[in-house]
């Protein structure tokens, strides 16, 4: 399975996005061997450096607009639940512009996989602070340093009802590939937060290489998962939480499939006749 495209790669040399793409490529191959074929594995992407992964992978899908790609895949999934959908989002994209969609997708347990390229900076717009940047971050819009405290996205998302939450690191490709496979295979909302250094605007390689630590066991309660997500040092990577819960589209319309079962014209006419005195 060749997943590359002819698109010219324009990520900065050394960017953490390369690690993410390698891991996703691996995950897609593993998934294919396990029965989630490329024909029904869809992707979408937000707008930012992270989004370019859309052009670099031969995977069907939708290059969305800034902040909205989670809603895009929710639409795909609810239209045809036979599809498996993953969306690649940025920290500015999903925690700033589009935060509502993350929270509500988690809340309704939409059966989608969200991979967050969290470089704690707006890469593509040249280095401004994002919701996850540490206080004091200096960028074009905060030359004296950001005055806001960062958001802890995993704690918030866990609280919102997410049924699968994991963290990984772009520098640990095998681990990240494993997290993506688990997330896609999870039935329900899954989110993989990826610690991603941006060599140009927020080079965190040293920090992560020092602080990242494998989480040996998945916490068995939501409370423990949230406390683990609150720990800043070490930065645990692994599955923080996983639980089974009914998924959105099945709660909504049961076992049907709107696209596959779409009624033909004659049947619609019949149903109109039953409804109206025609």
């Amino acid at each position, binding site marked *: 399975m060749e997943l590359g495209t002819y698109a010219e790669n324009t990520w900065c040399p050394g960017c953490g996005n390369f690690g993410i793409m390698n891991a996703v490529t691996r995950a897609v191959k593993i998934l294919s061997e396990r029965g989630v074929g490329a024909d029904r594995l869809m992707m979408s992407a937000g707008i930012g450096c992270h989004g370019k992964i859309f052009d670099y992978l031969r*995977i*069907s899908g*939708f290059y969305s607009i800034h902040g909205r790609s989670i809603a*895009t895949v929710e*639409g795909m999934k609810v239209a045809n639940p036979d599809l498996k959908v993953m969306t690649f989002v940025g920290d500015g994209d999903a925690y700033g512009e589009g935060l509502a969609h993350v929270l509500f997708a988690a809340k309704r347990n939409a059966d989608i996989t969200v991979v967050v390229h969290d470089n704690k900076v707006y890469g593509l717009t040249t280095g401004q602070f994002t919701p996850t940047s540490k206080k004091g971050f200096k960028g074009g819009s905060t030359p004296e340093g950001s005055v806001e405290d960062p958001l802890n996205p995993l704690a918030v998302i866990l609280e919102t009802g997410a049924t699968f939450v994991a963290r990984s690191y772009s520098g640990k490709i095998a681990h990240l590939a494993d997290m993506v496979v688990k997330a896609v295979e999870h039935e329900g909302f899954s989110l993989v937060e990826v610690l991603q250094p941006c060599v140009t605007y927020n080079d965190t390689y040293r920090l992560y290489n020092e602080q990242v630590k494998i989480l040996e066991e998945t916490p068995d309660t939501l409370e423990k998962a949230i406390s683990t997500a609150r720990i800043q040092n070490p930065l645990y990577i692994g599955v923080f939480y996983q639980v089974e819960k009914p998924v959105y589209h099945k709660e909504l319309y049961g076992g049907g499939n709107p696209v596959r079962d779409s*009624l033909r014209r004659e049947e619609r*006419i019949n149903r109109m006749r039953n409804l109206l005195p025609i």
Partner: protein
Amino acid sequence: MKKDEVFTYLVGGKAGEGVKKAGTVAMNMFSRMGRAAFEMDDYPSLIRGGHNFTVVSTAADVITSHYMKADLLVLHDERSYAEHQSQVKPEGIVVYNSDEVGEDVRGIGIPMTTEARKYPPNTMLRMGVGSVTVLAAAIGVSLDQLEDIIRMEYPREVEKNIDYARAVYELIPSEVMGKLHLERGEHTSSVLTGNQAAALGAYSAGLDIYFAYPMTPSTSILHFLAGHTKDLQVVAIHPENEIAVANMAVGAAFAGAKTMVGSSGGGLALMEETYSLAGMTEAPVVFVLSSRSGPSTGVPTYTEQGDLHFALNQGHGEFPRIVAAPGSVEETYYVAAELLMLVWKFQTPGTLVLDKHLSESSHTVTIDPERAAWADFSSHGSGEYKRYTITDDGISPLLFPPSSEVIKWNSYEHDELGITTDKAERIAAMHDKRKKKLETLTAYMKTITTVNVYNPGYPVIMTYGSTTMSVLEALRAGDIDATVVQPVYLRPFPVWEFAGYDTALVIEQSSTGQFATLLKEKARVDSEVITKYDGRPFDPQELASRIKEVV
């Protein structure tokens, strides 16, 4: 009453007193009598109290608007009495609730509240049953027939409703009984609101999923479809906000679902970025814009055509847009279907422009689903697939997952496969492709009805959307001979249908005359303009006098 005469029934009261329901019941009664009827509800944006009224006008043959002068008024409280008693026609009857309206007033007092209190607990809602009883008595419906009507229309606490109706019936003075006797008409019709017609039209054309966030006056599309998910087999989804609404719809279209979204101006404004996304990715989605009096939050439950320019220019950038503005409830059904067909045929977003008056008023209509359009599309055969293949007509065939081919839709400018590009020649080529699609679309529009012309002749009145209903009724009310030219499609604007017109009287519900401006710009039509922008639809008689002043 004479056969061709218009009969108008008005009920006024507090929110929660079943005023609107009384209007609906009246519509159903007239429809079953084979008559044409039109209902307009006037209500403030609140749930209890305030002042609501419903006006139902009926004629044996044709009617396209309510009238503000009424033959029979039933007024539940002091405020309704004060506001409406002067609307009674010379031979008309005012019935009021004597428990709430003071003594020594004109009309017939009935202690509606005292009677209602005998049938607890839903005494407030009982008031509407009383108003229907008065109507039945006045138009000559027998007590037995009324009982059948109540059984059908008020099934909750039905026995109490019937007992209450009997009690009220007994209290109605004999001079009212049958005084406003109505002839039967010869039509078989359904009673629909514009919003129901839009929902059913899209459904008939293939709608699979409707996405919306509640906003008056579009909300009843969502309620209607959500209430019919099982019998129609359709999905209705209410997400976190309008931005999610629009993006989910586009994502669902990628997966092959026929989707529609709806809101009022504020919600459409939130969807605009995605409207443009639909233009770029060539995603077929119908956006329903049901306007209220604006700008901003405006007056949520009142009508206006103030969003015309906004509707015409949804989304940034250059791409084909289709904007349709049906001029009646019946037309809304067919045009909603046709618009879904068009957006799929041309893979571009379309806007269905309605307003409070069209969305929420009810009309007796004849719907033939066999005549509704069906949303078909150009689909990829076999072999290598490229989402944005450049073709002679600008339309690239569609392919939906699951598929072994790679299907990429892209918000960035893209090449034929759907990969992002900034190459000069590719940018221009994709612009040319979308422009070609617009040309193909425009050529196609020449083969379908884009403009309605009523009573060819002179003078020429131009109008559009819900105001068409008011204008046509005004011509009947004022016995005025005039041609009415009503474009159903506003973008691409059907200039080819406007060749013979230089001047016109333009009638629209906006303060600045946006429609007149459009006609000047697109069709070089000079106009005098009659406008109304107080949130209320035109009254046909008032409009007839204003037309007579001009022509």
